Each structure stands twice: as C-alpha cells, then as structure tokens.
C-alpha cells in the first residue's frame, strides 16, 4: 500500500463499539472508525491502536465484520491497562493495516492444522474465520489450542461451540494445569501435538516463544518440512511502516515484511526473537 496522499503515521479517529471478556486478562475490542470500518485487513495483518493521551500499540487483528475490526488484547502494559478499563464508546485512534498477512493462497486446497498458545490464538483466529467463511477453498481443518489454565482460554464460544460444529473441523483444547471442573485434556501443546499425530499439509503456529520452540521440534520430529510451517513473530514496534528501526530481525522488519514467516524464511534470519 502506498500512502502518497497522507502521513501514514496519522491514525483515523474511531471508537470501541463492543467489548467481549475472553479471560481474566484478555478482552476482545470491536473497533469502528467514524466512517465505519477503518480499513479491510487480510488475515494475519496488524493494526496500530491508540488511546490518544495514553499510547499506541500494534495488535493483530483477530477478525472483522462489515463495519468493524476485532482485536483480542491481553493486559500487559500501560496502553492495554487503559484499554481494559475502557467502556463501550471509548474514543480511540487506529491506523493500518500493516504487515504481510498469512499466505492464504498457500493454504488453499490444503488440510490445515492451526496451533495456538495463549493469546497467540488471536492472530490465528483471523485465518480460521477466513477459512470457515470460505469453507470450500480449504481441506480438513484441525485446531489445537492450549492455555495455562481453563480460565485463561480465550474465544471459548468458538472453541467449544462454533468451530466444532463447522464442516470437517476438529478442535483440540488443552490446558497446562486443570481445575476441579475441567474435563478436557491436560498437558503442554508440544506433547499434545505429538499425541494427536496430525498429517495436514500446512501448519500455522502462533504463541509464546517457548511454546513455538518446542512445538517446532515436535513438528520436525513428526516429519514436517520448513515450507509447511508458518508462524508469526513479535517485536516492539513504533511506526508500523518499516522506518523507525526497532522491529528488525536481520534485514527484515516484522511490521512490514512480517509478522508472518514460513519456517524456511526464518532459517535465513538471525535467531533474535
């Protein structure tokens, strides 16, 4: 996208039009600009959301509706604290979309395994939603999601109601540690991946670095090639347009050339993430 017309660092004013509690520290915010939907991102792309006067941050766009964007945001810092305190109607500012997004074409016609850990399901969800909306374009879908505890599971309605009912779709949910009510699987994501021994042709993997590290080892043990595995990276970002410098991994900028990389692409970059 070439923004010749205007300063790409200036956001559009907008509002939070809906807030969904996902877990004790994750909420999904529905964002609309004054003129409706701020922009139309591809699955996996990012948006810079701010509360002017508080700060600005880059978040993955979890999903979108005809008139709004959705971002699932974990409470970790100054801006996200303020967002979690905000009410519906809170004025915000937003700019984007940023980043390359998922290579949707590569996934077409293929069986796909989505693996998400913690808040890492947020970016993954944008592609799951896209696949389910365009169900005919994709093969079998498996979704494996893990969180630290049952109460930290996000998108519960999707995990336990919407997605399991979708055609040719299997959902696996695990938690590191259960509680009295938890009837589901208990264990870490990498072990669960090995247990279900999947055979999709593409894998999309997002989550905390340590989960990614061990899951990659498992996937490689199960015979997956680097070209079959797609993941996303995260770094501190300020401009979102590849200029301010800080989100580089080698000569690539996560905000512009990422956040989505195949494992093959990552192999050519320094391991600094």
């Amino acid at each position, binding site marked *: *996208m*070439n*923004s*010749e017309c*205007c*300063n*790409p*660092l*200036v*956001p*559009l*004013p*907008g*509002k939070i039009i809906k807030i969904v509690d996902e877990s004790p520290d994750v909420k999904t915010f529905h964002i609309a600009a*004054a003129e409706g939907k701020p922009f139309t991102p591809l699955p996996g792309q990012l948006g810079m959301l701010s*509360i*002017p*006067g*508080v*700060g*600005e*941050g880059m978040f993955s766009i979890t999903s979108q509706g005809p008139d709004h964007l959705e971002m699932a945001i*974990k409470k*970790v*810092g*100054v*801006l*996200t604290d303020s967002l979690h305190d905000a009410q519906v*109607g809170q*004025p*915000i*500012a937003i700019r984007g979309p940023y980043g390359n997004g998922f290579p949707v074409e590569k996934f077409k016609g293929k069986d796909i395994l989505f693996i998400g850990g913690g808040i890492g399901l947020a970016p993954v969800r944008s592609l799951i939603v896209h696949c389910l909306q365009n169900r005919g374009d994709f093969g079998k879908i498996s979704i494996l999601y893990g969180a630290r505890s049952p109460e930290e599971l996000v998108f519960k309605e999707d995990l336990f109601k919407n997605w399991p009912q979708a055609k040719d779709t299997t959902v696996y949910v695990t938690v590191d540690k259960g509680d009295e009510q938890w009837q589901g699987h208990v264990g870490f994501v990498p072990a669960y991946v090995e247990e279900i021994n999947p055979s999709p042709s593409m894998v999309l993997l997002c989550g905390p*670095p340590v989960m990614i590290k061990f899951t990659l080892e498992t996937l490689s043990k199960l015979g997956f090639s680097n070209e079959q595995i797609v993941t996303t990276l*995260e*770094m*501190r970002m*300020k*401009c979102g*347009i*590849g*200029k*301010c*410098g*800080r989100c*580089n991994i*080698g*000569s690539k900028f996560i905000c*512009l050339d990422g956040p989505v990389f195949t494992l093959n692409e990552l192999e050519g970059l*320094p*391991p*600094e*993430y």
Partner: protein
Amino acid sequence: MQGIAKQDLNKVLETLSGGGAALLVPMEIDGVTRFARWEQGAKTALGAGNTLLPPKEALFPQNEKVFNYEMSNEEAKIVPSAAAAEETIILGIRPCDVRAIQALDNVFLTKDYVDELYKTRRRHTLLIALGCTQPAPTCFCSSVGGDPLQAEGADIMLWDLGETYGLEALSDKGKDLLKKIDKFMSKSRGKKPAAGKFSLEVDSRGIAEKLHNMFEDPIWDRWYQKCLGCGICTFICPTCHCFDMQEKHTGQWDGYRYRCWDSCMFQEYSLMAGGHNPRPTKKERLRNRFLHKLCFFQERYGMLLCTGCGRCVRECPVGMDITKFIKEVSEVSLNE
C-alpha cells in the same frame, strides 16, 4: 571551472538567503559545530572540517510533531501536522553527509511507505556540497565507497581552491540557483583539487556478506564490553534514523503525538510491553547497531549505512572504532 572569490562569500550567502530561503551553513554555536541558519554577520565554519552534528536534523529533526489530538467522551479529534515547507539550502555539507542523506532517502521515501514529513522537507531542500581536500584523521569515506571530492546527489559542488571556491552544478535545481549568483561568478583558474591522503583506511569490500554469517561469532563478546551503552554514536551519526513516537499532554484532554530520535543502544529501545527484551544486554544492542550499519542495510537498500564521516570514531568516549571493527571482521576466518 567557474568560481566565486572568497571575499565575496558573504555577498553570495546574502543573495542565497535573500529569496526567503533558510540558508544552513556550518557554524560554531556555544562550542558546537553544526548547521545553523545563516544571517548577515554570522561567521561560518566552512573550513573546519566535518561539523560535530550532522545536517540530518534539517530533514529529520530530533523532535517533530505528528499530529494534535483532542479527546472528549464522544470522540478523538486528530489534526495532522504538516512539515514546514520552507525552501532550505544546506551549504557546506560534505560528500559523506550527502551520501548519508541518500541513505535517509532510501529509508523514508522507499519500500511501500513514504514518510510525508521527511518528503516535504526533502523536496524543498537544496544541497551545496563542499569537497574535502584534506581528510581529518578520523575520516574514512574512501574506505566505505565514498569520494571526498565528489558528492553524487548534491545539487551543486563546491571546492576550496585557495582564493576562490570552484563551482559546478550537478542538477537542474543547482543550475537555477547558480543563475541567482551569476554576478559573483568568474572563470576560476583552478581546477578540481586532488584529495589529500587518508590516515584511516580499511578494506570494507564484502563486509556485509561476511557479517551475514557472523551473528553468533565470538567477535561480539570481544567488542561489547567497553561500550558505555550511551547514545552518542547514534545521535551524532548522519545516517542513524531510528525514532520513537511519544505523546505530550498539553491539557487534561489534549496534546500531541511526536516522534523523536531514539537510540538502539538504549535498553528501552526493544523492550516489549510484557517485559521481554530480545536485545537485553549491550552485546545484542551493539551487535544490532554494527550489523545494521554494515550488513542489514546493505541487504535491504544496497548500500552501507556508514559513510565514513568519522564522527563516532572521534566522539566515542571509550574509543569504539568502527574501522577497527571492519578490519577485525575481515581477519576472521569462517571455516565451518
């Protein structure tokens, strides 16, 4: 070659600044040599070699407002700032600093997004470069692909020929400007001078390719320890362009967002909101800075992000010497 007599310099500067243009020339202000607006009577520091502060602040100021905001319970009002579109002439910029501006052009004007604030300033800026006949002891432009006497990308080239400044227009904008000072021009007898000898020389050929495979080399352990972790090298570098964006409240509900220079040598630079820092110590930060200068930028934009101006070599209080680093890299044998 055409030229102007040195005794006419003040009149030339007066003419150049006459049309309302901001004329920036090297001057010494409170003990610091930098590019500052020339006004009648001001003393230039044209002959004093490279200025301590590079002219990058004319195109990319240390602080710059991006937009004003005004919050209410109902809406966020955003009013974008426009960059000052004042015609600016930078006179006396050295060839290394002109190359640095080419690097900044690559960053701010290419790769999908155009930085409006930079673009506006850049479009209204004209560069009159002064060739260097005597490199300073810390200069090494010729070692990183530069030419001390010729500034590709400048609009006009100047050379010190003793009694006169020799002149040559390199662009149409430059030709037009020379017409304004036509009456001071004479046929100068001198010809383009020869460059003096460099005391600092290093072979940087192939450095990017070599460093690409040295991310985990022990060289970084030898180099990071003496780094103070301060921002001198980044702030006085003509090519360093990393910035932060922050907000300033001017009232309870209103304020502005600005961008300001940032330094990759600072711990906060890559610190993420959740507390994770992918570059937690001076080692990772120094590595990223050197690799950005000598490898990553070359890979992304086809040029090194070091133009050999020598400022960091001169000013680093712990003697961090990038030419010594380049030499050490060239001596590393990568046998796997």
